[in-house]
């Protein structure tokens, strides 16, 4: 089997402006959604109490809501989770009550419903997060993102060239913003695993850019007489089959998580799916034109690099 039978280099760079305008529009849209709708943070960030309760028969959610409202829990969200018998209850942080006790009080309140005798609620999970923890998580997350960005820029600048580092990070941060935009637009819950997924995507799509850049560097060294756009076209074309196959494989794994992983892994897998799709797009069609516009040329690779990794052949060839 062979999927990719490409006779000539595909002229990706001819349409570079179009690709970048498309991605700029997506990016701006994502920013707009983020600023107007905002992210729907999980209680891990906002603080509050989250309970998962399971019933033998599907309960009437409206009754639960009314009962909780009557018992003084305002702004409580009651919704089903996975099946109609599993109920998720979110109670926001209240200022003056002993917040750590809320879980028990909600459960007591639910158990006091008239039909609780035959259809008793059973606690599966309680999560309580105090206000100070949530704030720290948000700042730690931002710090982690910053550290990742700095680390990657430094590494790529050393291994390649600053132009590659800058374009890779711009392209990949744009992926991150777009994922966040999706989460804002659909108001999907942004939890800690999603944050982990977003950061993993950042690493993953940088990885993607690195593969293309490696080829660009190699082509500059090996093939003389090509213009910069031609070099880029050649590099992208010769790695495209690997790009599609690798991402296809990773996506198979992620799809499997979407199917079998249940509610707990749902948004994690979703964030990865979006990340993988835009990761391909951005590293191939955004990062490479950026490198071109930043003025990459053969001269930058003329001298043999000092830091040649083990295993690299004499002509400096890499994939």
């Amino acid at each position, binding site marked *: *089997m*062979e999927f990719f039978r490409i*006779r000539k280099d595909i002229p990706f760079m001819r349409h570079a402006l179009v690709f970048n305008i498309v991605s700029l529009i997506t990016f701006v849209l994502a920013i707009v959604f983020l600023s107007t709708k905002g992210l729907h943070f999980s209680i*891990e960030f906002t603080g509050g109490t989250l309970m998962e309760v399971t019933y033998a028969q599907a309960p009437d959610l409206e009754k639960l809501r009314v009962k909780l409202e009557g018992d003084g829990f305002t702004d409580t969200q009651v919704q089903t989770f996975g099946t109609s018998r599993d109920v998720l209850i979110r109670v926001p942080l209240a200022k003056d009550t002993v917040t*750590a006790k809320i879980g*028990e009080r909600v459960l007591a309140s639910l158990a006091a419903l008239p039909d609780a005798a035959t259809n008793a609620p059973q*606690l*599966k*999970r*309680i*999560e*309580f*997060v*105090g206000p100070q*923890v949530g704030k720290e*998580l948000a700042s*730690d997350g931002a710090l*982690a993102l910053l*550290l*990742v960005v700095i680390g990657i820029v430094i*590494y790529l600048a050393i291994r390649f060239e600053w132009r590659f580092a800058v374009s890779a990070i711009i392209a990949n941060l744009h992926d991150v913003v777009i994922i966040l935009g999706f989460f804002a637009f659909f108001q999907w819950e942004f939890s*800690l*695993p999603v*944050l*982990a997924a977003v*950061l*993993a995507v*950042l*690493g*993953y799509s*940088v*990885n993607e850019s*690195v*593969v293309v850049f*490696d080829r660009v560097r190699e082509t500059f060294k090996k093939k003389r007489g090509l213009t910069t756009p031609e070099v880029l076209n050649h590099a992208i074309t010769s*790695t495209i089959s*690997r790009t599609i*196959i*690798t991402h296809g*494989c*990773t*996506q*198979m*794994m*992620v799809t*499997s*998580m979407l*199917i*079998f*992983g*249940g509610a*707990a*892994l749902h948004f994690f897998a979703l964030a990865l799916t979006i990340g993988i799709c835009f990761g391909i797009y951005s590293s191939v069609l955004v990062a490479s034109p950026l490198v071109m516009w930043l003025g990459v040329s053969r001269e930058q690779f003329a001298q043999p690099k000092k830091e040649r990794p*083990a*295993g*690299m*052949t004499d002509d400096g*060839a*890499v*994939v």
Partner: protein
Amino acid sequence: MNRYPLWKNILVVVALVFGLLYTLPNFFGEVPAVQVASVKATVKVDLQLMERIEGVLKTAGIADNGVFADANSVRVRFGATDTQLKAKDAIEKALNPDPTDATYSVALNLLSASPAWLTGIHALPMYLGLDLRGGVHFLLQVDMKGAITKRLDATASDLRAMLREKDIRHTGIAREGMAIVIHFHDADTQAKARDAIIDTQPAAVAGGGAKGLAAQPDLIIAEGGDGNDLRLTITLSEAAQRRVQEMAVKQNTGTLHNRINELGVAEPIIQQQGIDRIVVELPGVQDTAKAKDILGRTATLELRMVDEDNSTNPSVMDAAVKGQPPVGDEYYVERGGHGLLVRKQVMLTGERLTDAQPGFDNQTHEPAVHLTLDSAGARVFRDLTRDNVGKRMAILLIEKGKGEVVTAPVIRSEIGGGRVQISGRMTTQEAADTALLLRAGSLAAPMEIIEERTIGPSLGAENIKKGFDSTVGGFTAIAVFMMAYYLLFGLVSVLALSANMLFLVALLSLLQATLTLPGIAAIALALGMAIDSNVLINERIREELRGGSTPQAAITAGYERAWATILDSNVTTLIVGIALLIFGSVAVRGFAVVHCLGITTSIFSSVVLSRALVNFIYGRRKKLAALSIGQVWKPGITAK
């Protein structure tokens, strides 16, 4: 020719054997067990205890699957959960004949069913996080300000006693905010007091620096006021504050240990996190309310004098009931109903307590708690009782910041020896609870639960299943595709991927890193990303073939040229993993650990191990015509 040197082949085989060995325990699963540990420092877990437990099980007619002992506990494995429960009751009854005074904690636990030789080489199953096994997680914040005010209260009490002893007359000493303030009528006494404090408190230093400049002053004394109202204001130095806070967190952690041990939870985790936080994880505990109750109980004892003049004055008492007690007094209701006024000044605290046991009063046969004081406490108590014969003292139990007068007896005579008994209107159960709480120690500072997570056991099992299904599903899909697309090289890639999984699980088992659901997701993702290296290699080999290389040369070139790319792309991914590891919270860290390990193992398995396999298959053939790597389409041939 593609051959590995012998050492590389040996390395691959050793790595595989290691991987297999340490992955093995995960396949045996877990069996129900009962864990017995000592809760008293004087009682050691030894062979005798093991024999005793075996005897108990034999007489009760309960079959066990092996009894094991380590330094701290004896563990008995059982075939089924109901025998486990029966055995727990039998052992509990035999070892702790008096439930109010337990010597051993008997807890239900799960043990790895793997054979002893595996356990001997530290091959243990992966350590499952709470979200996979069920249990309770708490994050507690220690109130650092509370720790300091507590320390200041104690210092104020010391100074008060010292000034009285030296007969230096002050017009009041009290803690005001974060300082102790002593009032005087004249400057002479003020100076005397200041010198006395510097003399008796070696670490104290006067604000003017006149005398006793210690290297690291704990107490800083400042003079103030004028005319008839002169003051000495004493504050804790910053270094001392920090020390007090460090000690407070340490002591609270220790106290939590004691409390949880008394309750018999198998494998609890109690750890300091950051400067002022403590993490408590109780696997298997489902009853959060009870767990919280245990953690939150901050019982300590205080001994104070009763203000008898005011307590017998009806008008003062009326005002006190309404919330306006006289200055220096506090209003309490004694157990049994009488209100009384107790002086704020604390004569003795629970810190001086070395033991507390429930028992009965010798004369009245009422339930009682017998207390033993340390030598300093015994001396204070002797002086106190000698000086106050005929007066009433109050024994207060302070729980969660609220005090209760347990008893307020009249002092009949001097009591020496440091043995004190509290009795009065207690049930046997109350006496046992009070003793337990006092014995388990007091908290050096109040704590607050700032994060709580409870996961039911069924949810834990569900999470394992979901994580496992996702991984298997994705793995199968990738395996089928790779073999269809790259044929034999696809098979090699799949074998390398399986080896990667093996190494990852083995490392996680060996390091006993906590595996959480995000961790399982990271395993799946690591596999999904690890295949990238093999795709890179396979594509490169195809490309070399397309370019006209001989099969053997294509293999060599493919692996060599792919290596730099693999290295670069994995290092960037590793940077992300490490950032997550450093800055992530606990949940994210579970993901990051696996992510980082997965990247490392994938480099080895997809490059070194798959090369070894390819060398094994093709390396020795001199006349190799073609590679089984799927169709290699050459544009030059078909185009013409």
